[in-house]
C-alpha cells in the first residue's frame, strides 16, 4: 500500500507538469485547430528565464520566497510576450494558408527557440541554486511528499481551476469559446477574433511557463533541448483528455503522470516510454476524441 501511495504521489507531481503544459496545446488547438509544436520549448524557456532571475541576486541573499514569486511572474510575463510574438510572426501570416504550412512553421519555431536557448544559456546542464525553497518533507503511511511537490500539485490545481473559471464564467472566456466553435459567426457577433487568438497565445504559454519553472525548481536542472520531451508528453496528455477541451487536458496530464509512474513501478522502467506511446495509440483507436473530447482531431 505504501508503494502504491508513493507511486500515486510521484505520478501526480509529474502529471501536474504535463497538465499545465497540455493546457497551452489544447487552448490553441481549440481555437485554431493548430498544434503549436513550439509550446514545449516556450515552457522550458521559462525555466531558463526563471533561473536568470533566481541567480541574479535581486533582493539579497535571503530574498527566498519573494524571489521565487518574482521569478514566476517574470517568466510567465516574458514567455507570454514570446507566445504573442510567435503568433504574430509565425502563425498569423499563415492563417489563410494550408494547415500543413502552419504545422511546419510551428516545428521551425520549436527549433528556433530550442537553439536560441542554447545560444543564450549554453549547451551545458544548468543547475538551479539549492535551498531556494524550504527543504521539508512529510512521511505518512510509508510514503513521503516534499514541500516542492505540495507546491507543484496545489499550484497546478489552482491555476487549472482558475483557467476553467475564466473560460466558462467571464465575458472574455465566453468570447474564446465562441471563437472556438465558429470564428466567422463569432466575428459576426462583434467578437474581435484576432484579439481572442492573441490572448490564447499569451495565456497558454504563460501557464506552460509556470509548469516549466516548476520543472526547473523541482529537479533543479535544465538543459536547452528538454522542451521536446515535455512538449511531446504534454501533447499526448492533451490527446488522452480530448484535445481542445480544457478539463480534458488537466485529466489527461494527471492520468499520463500516474500511468507513467505505475508502468515504471509495476511493469518495467525500460519499457516506460514504449508503454506510454502504446497507450496513445490504443486511445486513438478506441476513442479518437479522447476521454472528454467532442471534436475529432482531423485537421492535421
Amino acid at each position, binding site marked *: 500500500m505504501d508503494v502504491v501511495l508513493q507511486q500515486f504521489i510521484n505520478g501526480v507531481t509529474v502529471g501536474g507538469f504535463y497538465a499545465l503544459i497540455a493546457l497551452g496545446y489544447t487552448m490553441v488547438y481549440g481555437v485554431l485547430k493548430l498544434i503549436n509544436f513550439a509550446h514545449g520549448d516556450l515552457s522550458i524557456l521559462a525555466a531558463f528565464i526563471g533561473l536568470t532571475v533566481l541567480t541574479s541576486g535581486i533582493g539579497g541573499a535571503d530574498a527566498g520566497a519573494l524571489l521565487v514569486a518574482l521569478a514566476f511572474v517574470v517568466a510567465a510575463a516574458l514567455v507570454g510576450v514570446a507566445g504573442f510574438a510567435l503568433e504574430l510572426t509565425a502563425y498569423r501570416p499563415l492563417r489563410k494558408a494550408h494547415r500543413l504550412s502552419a504545422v511546419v512553421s510551428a516545428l521551425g519555431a520549436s527549433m528556433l527557440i530550442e537553439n536560441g536557448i542554447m545560444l543564450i544559456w549554453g549547451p551545458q546542464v544548468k543547475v538551479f541554486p539549492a535551498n531556494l525553497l524550504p527543504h521539508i518533507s512529510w512521511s505518512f503511511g510509508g510514503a513521503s511528499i516534499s514541500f516542492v511537490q505540495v507546491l507543484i500539485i496545489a499550484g497546478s490545481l489552482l491555476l487549472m481551476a482558475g483557467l476553467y473559471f475564466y473560460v466558462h464564467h467571464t465575458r472574455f472566456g465566453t468570447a474564446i469559446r465562441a471563437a472556438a466553435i465558429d470564428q466567422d459567426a463569432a466575428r459576426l457577433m462583434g467578437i474581435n477574433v484576432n484579439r481572442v487568438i492573441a490572448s490564447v497565445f499569451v495565456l497558454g504559454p504563460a501557464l506552460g511557463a509556470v509548469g516549466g519553472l516548476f520543472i526547473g525548481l523541482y529537479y*533543479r536542472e535544465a538543459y536547452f533541448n528538454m522542451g521536446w520531451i515535455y512538449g511531446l508528453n504534454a501533447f499526448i496528455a492533451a490527446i488522452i483528455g480530448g484535445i481542445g477541451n480544457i478539463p480534458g487536458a488537466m485529466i489527461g496530464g494527471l492520468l499520463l503522470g500516474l500511468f507513467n509512474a505505475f508502468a515504471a513501478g509495476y511493469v518495467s522502467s525500460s519499457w*516506460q516510454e514504449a508503454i506510454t506511446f502504446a497507450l496513445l495509440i490504443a486511445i486513438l483507436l478506441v476513442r479518437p476524441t479522447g476521454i472528454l473530447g467532442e471534436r475529432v482531431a482531423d485537421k492535421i
Partner: protein
Amino acid sequence: MTRTLRTNPEQNASGGLWRSLLLAAVVAGLVGVAFAQKPILIGVQAPITGQYANEGQGIEKAVKLIAKQVNDKGGLLGRQIEVQTCDDAGQASQAAICARQFVNAGVLAVIGTYTSGAALAAEPVYARANVIQTSDGTSDKLTQSGYETFFRNAPPNSAEAKFTAQYLLDGKHYQRIAVLSDHSSFAQGLSDAVVNEIKQAGGNLVYTGFISAGSQDYTAVLTKIKSVSPDVLYFSGYYPDGGLIRAQMEQLHMDAAFVGGDANQNVAFAKIAGNAAQGAIIVNVPSPENLPFPAAKQFLADYKAAYGEDPPSIYTFTNADGFRAVIAAIEATNSTDPAKLMDWMHGMKDFQGLTGTFSWDQSGERIGSPFTAFEVQADGSYRIVYPEAAAQ
C-alpha cells in the same frame, strides 16, 4: 680544511704539478669513457598532433621530465637516457611508420601511445624486433595477442567493472545490490559487465533496470527499487541523471548507498544532487591531483614546475609509470638486454607506481587497478575511500 687542500706552489711546486697532471689524465679518461658509452634510447610514440594532441604531449613531457631527472643524477648504468619522439597522430597508419622508425633507430623501449588503435598497429612491429612497448591503450585486444613485449600501464576497459564489484562485495560487503543504467551503449556495457562480475563473485542482485536518460523524473523506478530494500544502488550512466537520482533517493527517504560509474564524475553532479550529494560514492581512476601517494604528489609538482601547466589526465601518469618500471628493470638487472628486462618486468611484484601498486601478468596486463572509489564531500570535493592503501 680549505688551507690544506689548496696547493701551495712555493712549498710543493713539482709535486703539485704532477698531481695536476694526474688529475687531468683521470678526468680526461672518465670523460672519454662517458663519451664512448652510447646513450640508452627510449622512444615516445604519442599523438603529438590531432584530436588527442593534448594527451600525447602530456606523455612526451612526462617521459622527458623523468629522463632529465635520471640524467641529472648521473644516468642509468653510467649511461645517459636519450628520448626520441614520433607523432602517430592517434592513427594506426602513422603508428606503424613510427614503430619501424623506432626499430631502425634501435630504441630499447617505447612509451605510449595514447589510443588503442595506434598501439595495436605498432604492437607486432615491436614484438618482432624485441622492443619493449608500454601503452595506456584500454582495448582488451592489446593483451590478447600473446606478445611478450607489450605491457599495459593503464586499466583495460573491463577493469572498472571488476573494481566496482570488488568494492561493493569485498570492500563494503553489500548484501542486496540494485543496478540501474540508461540505454546508452556506454552505460549499458558498463552495467552489464558489473552485473556479470557481481554474479560471478556470488553477490546478491535484487534489482536491475533502466532509466531513459534526460527524462528527469526517476521517482517511480526509485520507489520500485526502494520496495525491494537494497543496501546499495549502483548507477552506470551520466552525471545529469546520477545527480537527480541521488537527490530523488533522498526525497523518497531511501537508505541505500549510492555508487556511480565514472561518467558521474563532474562538478555538476554535486550541484544537481544538492544537499544529497554528500556521501555519494563515484568509481573512477583518480585525476593526477587526487593521487594520494607522496611520489605522485612530488611528480605532479615537478611536472607543474617544469611545464607551468597541469598534466592532461591520469594517463600521463600511467605512461610515466610504464617508463619508471623500465628504468627499475634496467637498474635491477644491471642490463639493457630486452629479454632480461622483460623477464624482470613480468616477474616484478608490487611495483610502487605513481598511480598505485601494480605488477604485470604474462600477457602484459596490469594487475593492480588504479581505480578508486571516492566519496563526494559537502563542498563538492572528493575523498578517496577505497582501496584502503589509497584512502587518505
